[in-house]
């Protein structure tokens, strides 16, 4: 069986990956304690997985596979408490947020594994600049054709997902003016972007085999797409979220993707079209730059609206699906967020205005993420 055979999985199961920042507790710059932190959490039993990421200042939390939001949020809280307890013993902080507000990429060191060294070799300074922090959501699909359809259809909602998670307004010590500056970093990679406009899994495999024939890619891992099918897991993986400032928001974003998938796969309300990808980059840029206030163009009707308007319409359409999936309260939280215009990016900017120093923004980012974890005995 080839690794490109789509291994169907329980429909609409979901899993969340969170890339998190490790901060020192002196000036709250990025620290380099990933190895010690992972060594310490490995000694305590915990659900899911806690793994290294490309630089020594990052740690990744993986949930296990869930079908219900309540179980997902409970597990993410448990993971958070576990990693926070270890961090406290090492005197480091763990923080959410899509970017560290003031670290310098030249200071970063690659986590010493073969794969990460290979990435540094291939991408040079881009690998170190890739010290940005995202949330990935996997959603289970029964077969490859559904996965291709779902990948296209979720692409329409990429701006919505960005606007719900924006949390990287600062980069390298400066306010970027963006709500999510993280995705600009991703765009520099040659294999970033979107899936080609294919209709079935067989067409997709033909495309993949051709690229592999050219020697451009070896596996699906080489694509840095916003959304990509993941045949070995039987999932579609959404990669556009900035890591939110709390695990509760992260779980709600998982529920949002799950409900969208439920809607799309059960009702097939829209059909893929090349037009989707003609408006894609425009919509995506607007969401990164302006968040909920960004402009949004609907590829089917060519209507212009603000992203907030289309998000509220979308959340209303998702209500029955959220009910079926028992994630109504989580989506209700997101609706209130959209109506109030609040976002993690705004919280970070407000905190900066109140505190006057980015080091204090990073400190409070850490306190907010670790909040409920109890100190170890």
């Amino acid at each position, binding site marked *: 069986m080839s690794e490109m055979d789509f291994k169907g999985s329980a429909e609409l199961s979901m899993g969340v990956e969170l890339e998190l920042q490790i901060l020192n507790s002196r000036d709250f710059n990025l620290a380099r304690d990933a190895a*010690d932190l992972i060594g310490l959490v490995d000694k305590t039993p915990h659900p899911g997985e806690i793994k290294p990421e490309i630089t020594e200042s990052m740690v990744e939390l993986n949930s296990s596979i869930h079908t219900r939001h309540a179980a997902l949020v409970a597990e993410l809280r448990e993971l958070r408490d576990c990693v926070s307890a270890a961090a406290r013993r090492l005197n480091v902080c763990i923080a959410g947020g899509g970017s560290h507000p003031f670290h310098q990429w030249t200071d970063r060191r690659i986590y010493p594994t073969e794969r990460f060294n290979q990435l540094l070799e291939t991408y040079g300074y881009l690998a170190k600049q890739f010290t940005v922090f995202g949330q990935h959501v996997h959603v289970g699909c029964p077969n490859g054709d559904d996965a291709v359809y779902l990948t296209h259809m979720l692409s329409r909602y990429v701006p919505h997902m960005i606007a719900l998670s924006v949390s990287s307004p600062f980069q390298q010590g400066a306010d970027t003016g963006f709500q999510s500056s993280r995705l600009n970093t991703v765009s520099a990679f040659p294999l970033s972007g979107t899936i080609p406009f294919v209709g079935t899994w067989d067409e997709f495999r033909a495309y993949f085999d051709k690229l592999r024939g050219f020697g451009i890619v070896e596996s699906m891992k080489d694509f840095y797409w916003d959304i990509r099918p993941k045949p070995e897991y039987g999932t579609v993986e959404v990669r556009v979220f900035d890591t939110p400032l709390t695990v509760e928001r992260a779980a709600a974003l998982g529920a949002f993707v799950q409900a969208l998938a439920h809607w799309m796969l059960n009702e097939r309300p829209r059909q893929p079209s090349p037009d989707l990808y003609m408006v894609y980059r425009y919509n995506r840029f607007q969401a990164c730059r302006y968040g909920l206030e960004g402009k949004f163009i609907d590829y089917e009707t060519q209507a212009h609206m603000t992203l907030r308007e289309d998000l509220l319409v979308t959340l209303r359409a998702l209500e029955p699906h959220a009910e079926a999936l028992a994630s109504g309260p989580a989506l209700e939280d997101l609706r209130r967020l959209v109506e109030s215009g609040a976002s993690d990016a705004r919280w970070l900017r407000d905190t900066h205005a109140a505190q006057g120093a980015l080091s204090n923004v990073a400190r409070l980012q850490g306190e907010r993420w670790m909040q409920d974890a109890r100190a170890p005995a």
Partner: protein
Amino acid sequence: MTNPGFFPEWPLAHSPIVLFGLLLLAGFIGGELARRLARIPRLIGYTLTGLLLGPGGIDWLDTASLAASRVFVDIALGLLLFDLGRRLDLDWLARDRWLFITGLAESALTFGLVFCVLIQFDLPAVPAAIAAAIAIATSPAVALVMSRELRAEGQITERMLNLTAMNSVVAVLVTTMLLSWIHHEYRGDWILMVLHPLYLLLGSGLLGVLASLAVLGLARVLGKQRERHFVLVLALVVLAIGAARMLELSVLLTMLTFGVLVRNLDQNRDVLDVDFSRVGLIFFVVLFVVSGASLSLDSLKSGAVAGGAFVLARFAGKALGVMTFTHFSGLRPGSAGLLTLTLMPMSALAIVMLEVTTGLYPQLRGELSAIVLSAVLILELAGPLLVQFALTRAGEARAKEETAT
């Protein structure tokens, strides 16, 4: 021809400014030579420069010049202890009791073992206790300067700095309290015995408290502006050092208190983490040259054996304390040994503590000085190499090509 009035009188008067500049230049050259020719840390070059220029070498830096340079030593050490105090994180010690216990245990074991060994060398109890108290402290200068020079970051580095801060506090407190015993032994004056340590502890502590409150209050008024905070903190550091000298208080105790409090009282982080490394380095070069000049190979003639035993006992005390307890404190296996090595350096702090405790009763010196200075000579030269080895081995120092700056 008579001097028309605008030429300087010959011979030229001693100038502390010229002395400072010359020490800095000489140390700088020595440091670069060490780095380029022998590929050893610059710190060792500074110390060797001092050793060469001092009374034990070509005697260009004679006893009078050394006395004149005492003010630079006080500023440099004050700045260092302040900086080190800022690295002591009481929250961490409260969260990780084992780290706190490690610090107390290695201090106590070091004192105990060094004391017992020196008694075996027929040193009387008072000087043996002074030497043992001095042995507790790791060199703040080496810990701070080496961690910056190697741009080291990580658990061993952080623990080295916190344990160094802890054992410096313990050493300074113990030597201050030993003054009671010294007065009792040499003068038997009860009032002096009680009042002198009390004046030093309370007075220096109070001065440290006032300085830290002043920084916190003024920083809040100023708002978060990095350059302003730099000037503010530097001003109070210099002021506190000057006031401590003026009031005959302990510069060491004052600056440690100041540093620890300015960090740990500031729960909302109103004071920015200002970086003194550039300004500090100027003083640290001079500090190492002057402390190198205070040493001499001659001290080895009379003190080498006991000094060597002092070094071994000190190593055993620190190793026993660190290896026994670090295991419980979440550090990866194998790193306790490396952490022990980072605690070995001794330098200017030991010399100053020796001067402070023996200053009032010169009859105390002699054998005590020979032993302590021999040990300092060994560990001031070997210490930076041990720290470099340990931090590099732990993977916490930056790769070589990156340290080239």
